[in-house]
Each structure stands twice: as C-alpha cells, then as structure tokens.
C-alpha cells in the first residue's frame, strides 16, 4: 500500500534513534564490564571477567541483588492483590461510575514520583502522621522506628507507586473478556464464584502476567524509593550501581552489575511473553 521510500522514511529515524542512543550505549557498557580501574583512577582497557567474579564473590553484591528481588516479589504480590480486585470491580460492577473510578486510579500516575515518595516520608517518619496518630491513641509509647528507613517502607511505597501498573493490563483483559462467556457460565449452572474461578480468572491470566511483569521489573530497578525511604537495610541493587558509577568511580563493576540485571529482566520478559501466549485465546 505504501511505497518503499515512504516506509523507509518512516521507520529509519526511530531505528537510528534506538541504535544510537540505546544499543550503542549498551554495547559500550558491555565493553566496560570487562575492563578495570587502576589505582590512579583510570580505566584500564584490559579484557577480563574479574568484575563478574566479584559480583559472585563479594557477598554485599549478590545479597543486595537477592534482597532487591525479594522486595520486588513482595511489591508484585501486593500490587496484584490490590490491583486485581480493583480491576474486577471496575470492569464488572462499577456501572456508570466506571470512567470516574478509572480516572481516579490513573491520575496518581501524573503526580511526580518524588512527591509521592516524600509523602510517605511524612506519613511514616518518627514525627510523621502514622506515629503521631498511634501515640495519640496510646497504642504505642515511642515512635515505631521500623516504619521509615526499612525494607517495609520501600515495599509500601513501591506498592503504592506500581499498583496502577499492575491494574492497567488486568483491567484491559477483563474489559475485553466477552460478556457472553460469563452469561454462558451462569446459564450452565455455575454460581458467580464458580464462574470467576473457572472462566473469568483463567481468561485474565495474560493480564495478570503482564501486570506482574510490570510491577516486578519496575520495582526491581527502582533506586529512588530505597534512597529516600530505605535506610541502610532497605538498600537495593540500583543504589549500588548508582554509587559505583558515582562516588566509588568503578564504572566497570557498575557495568557488570547492570548487565546481570539486564539479563535477568530480559529473561523474565521472554518468560512472561511465553506465558501470556500460552494463555491467550483471542
């Protein structure tokens, strides 16, 4: 339908853009991960896999990576637990309020990430809303210290931030679910609960997988929430990468860790893509 020249003209700029500003830097990073830093703080261009070895040898690196995955797993679980019922309610039972409620879920996404993170800081801090309230109600005598600067604070904040990302794909699949399938199920004698578990939930699995992937990948790579609210025990792998590229000035090691994360995320994406395909029937 379109001429070859037109197609080339349309596709070439974005392709160039991606090649120049994404693939090329990645390639450079990949090279960096095999180099090293000399005592005089210069990059030594000698090829070896020492950096990857360090990642496995030095416990703080792999432990932080594992902790990050554990935090991301919890964020994913909570986002799904909150996002799924919300999406289900909106899609099936919200009636005329559907659009309004949908906007209410989406609007927080427009608020700056920093504002939302700081909001949690004022809520969870030792002089924060939460502790003041608890002490005022005589439930606690001293401010609860674990509320802020802890993995708990990070999980809570990330769940708040990434629940809409889990919600959206689930909501989209539920909206596309043919309603006559639900009617057919009722017609064949299935109660609403049976209909949910035997028809609605299985058919919404692609949305759940997509939502889980979003929540996991985004929270795994997050560094602002742990920086602002995590404290020493809530540090995540991205914070280490940031400091390696910054104050520590060890770009090669930072690049190696980044690449391990990239590999992790890409294999996760491939896996979730397969899972989605297996469960999609349209």
């Amino acid at each position: 339908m379109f001429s070859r020249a037109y197609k080339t003209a349309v596709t070439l700029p974005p392709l160039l853009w991606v090649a120049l500003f994404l693939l090329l830097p990645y390639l450079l990073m990949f090279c960096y991960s095999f180099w090293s830093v000399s005592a005089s703080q210069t990059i030594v261009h000698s090829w070896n896999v020492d950096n990857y070895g360090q990642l496995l040898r030095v416990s703080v690196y792999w432990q932080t990576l594992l902790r990050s995955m554990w935090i991301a797993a919890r964020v994913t679980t909570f986002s799904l637990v909150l996002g799924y019922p919300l999406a289900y309610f909106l899609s099936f039972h919200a009636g005329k309020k559907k659009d309004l409620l949908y906007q209410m879920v989406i609007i927080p996404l427009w608020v700056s990430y920093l504002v939302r993170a700081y909001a949690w800081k004022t809520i969870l801090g030792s002089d924060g809303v939460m502790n003041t309230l608890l002490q005022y109600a005589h439930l606690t005598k001293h401010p609860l210290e674990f509320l802020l600067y802890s993995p708990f604070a990070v999980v809570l904040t990330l769940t708040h931030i990434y629940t809409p990302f889990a919600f959206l794909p689930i909501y989209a699949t539920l909206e596309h679910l043919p309603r006559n399938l639900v009617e057919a199920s009722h017609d064949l004698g299935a109660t609403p609960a049976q209909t949910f578990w035997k028809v609605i939930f299985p058919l919404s699995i692609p949305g759940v997988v997509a939502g889980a992937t979003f929540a996991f990948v985004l929270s795994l790579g997050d560094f602002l929430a742990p920086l602002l609210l995590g404290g020493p025990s809530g540090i995540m792998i991205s914070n280490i990468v940031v400091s390696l590229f910054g104050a520590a000035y060890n770009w090669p090691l930072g690049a190696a860790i980044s690449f391990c994360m990239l590999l992790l995320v890409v294999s996760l994406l491939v896996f979730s893509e397969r899972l989605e395909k297996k469960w999609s029937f349209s």
Partner: protein
Amino acid sequence: MSAADGEDRAALLRIRSVAKHFGKNVVLRDISLDVAEGEFLTILGESGSGKTTLLRIVAGFESASAGEVWMGEERLDRQPPYRRRVNTVFQHYALFPHLTVEQNVGYGLRVAKRPTTEIESRVAEALEKVKMSAQAKSKPSKISGGQQQRIALARALVNRPRLLLLDEPLSALDANLRRQMQVELKSLQREVGISFIFVTHDQEEAMVMSDRIALLRSGELEQVATPREIYGRPATAYAAQFIGHTNLLKGEVRSGNVRCGLLAWPAAGLPDGPALFSLRPENIRVAGAATATAGMVRARGKVVHRAYHGATELIRVECADGLVLVVRTPGSTSLDEVELEFSPADAIQVRESPERI
C-alpha cells in the same frame, strides 16, 4: 379457528404480561405467551423488535420491568440464571476458549459436581449425538463455525434442560450449511423432546422449523400461530407482509359486498366500513379463456415487471384504476396484457398495523 398446535399440550413455560423498558425506551410491552412441553416455538421479528430481550428475560440475563415468568409451579423470573433449568445456545456460541470441546460440553455437569464417570459418559453421548466425538480434544478456535454450533448445542443439551433457548444460532453460518442445520436441529429437537424457543429474523427459517411462530413487532406480539395458519390466515397487515409476499387491498364493505377500486366481491358477515385484505400472489391466477369461472373475481391489466424465480415467476400487473397486483405464475407468460382471477375466499381480511414508537 383451529387450536394452535401447542395449546393441546400442557404449558411448560408461561410468560405473563412481561414488559421491559430501558429508561424511557420501551422494548417489550405486555407479552403473554405459553410454550408447551416438547414444542418448537419460534420468536420471529426484525432487529429491534425485542425478540432477543424476551429470550434473555427467560434465560435470566435481563430482568423484566413488569410481569411474571412461570415454569410449572415455579416463579422463574425470581431465580438467578444459574438456578433455572433452562439452557441457552448463544448467537456467537460463547464457547469457552480456554477449554477443549470435551471440557466445554462437560462444564455444566462439572459445576453441578456430578460424579466423574457420569460426566464422561454423558459428554461422550452428547458428542456422539452431534457427531463431534472426533474433535473432543480440540480447542474451540481449531474447529469450524458449523462445528462450534454443534458443540454449543451439545453443551446445552447435556444438562437435560426442560427448555432450550436458541438466540439466532444459525445466523453466522452460510446459506447451505444453514439449511442443513435447520433440518438437523429440527430432527434433534424431535428426538430429545425438549421444548425449544428459537429466536430468528429469518421468516423462512421460522416457517421450516417451528410448531408455532410468535411474531413480534416493536415489542408487541403481532400474531402467535402455526406456520400454516400465520401464512394462510395472517391476522394483521404486518404479519401478511413479513411472512411471504402479499397484495394488500384497501377496500370498503357495504351491505355484504366489498368494493376495492374496480374489483368487487361478496363478503357476507363483514360489518360496513373500510377494510384491509391480504391476497397472496399464488392465489391469483392468469386466466386463459375469455369466459369467467363462476364465483371468481376478475381483473385485467398490463404486465409491468417480471421476476423469474425458477419454478415460478412473479409478475407485477397494473390494472386500469392504477391498482398493482403481484401474481405468482407457474412457468412464464409472454403476454403483455393479462386477464387475472382469484377466489373471494383467498382475500383474507387483516387488521391494520399502525406505526409504533
């Protein structure tokens, strides 16, 4: 008037004064209808006539704004759809895409928690009945439209409902397959002996399959009768025109005689005043000889249009006073001027069908 076929048998489903409106939009108005045990009833109507809404009220997907639906001694319209002993074959089949053919058919039995061995044997039997045993392990997306249709039917019948609802189940099939399925569906219905309510907009389909036809127009029942009766003795102008072709003659009755332009015939027992008559094209014949047959009404006119239909030909004849008659003739006529005649008994008086909003 001969008693309608269904009324001889016990009524299984009784629809009483059912109405439905969505806001200000009235979809159904005062519908009362009985479905007999083992009857094949067709709800026939154009799109927007409310036929699907009526079916959905019986199935339980829609609640009536007024009126009652009874099945035996049970008030059906107060039950949720999953407690009604009614099953539906949906317009686009609504097969569960994540389940195999076999699992689809067994769905109703599984949610009813029947023993596994019973489920297996009944599913196998149902698949056998619709000749789909070979595709038992396939997913619905891997089988053709006609096959999906059979599975939808098996999935509903395996639960042994007392009443099966079919919402335009053949509309998605091509013409040949559709005719074949009409025959199969009808013989299946006789075999299982379950009452069917079949919704369609296709009058031919309704004629071929039904014991009785309920003709719906703008949310009101126009006529409920056997195919023969509804065709032979249509009650209203709409019924006469919707089912088959007809000529509508506007006449005037005066002291036992009908006058309609140049035509006139005796009509004993009709009250004086304006009257509307339906005259089927096949009941008018092209008279060859000059002499009139006794008791027949005669007219003379010019042939203005011919449409060849294979076994018959439809010709439009314009008479002297501007009256146009459509006539169905066997074979074909080459004449430009024809002499027509029909029996007064074939001119059926019908009620006007006023416009409804």
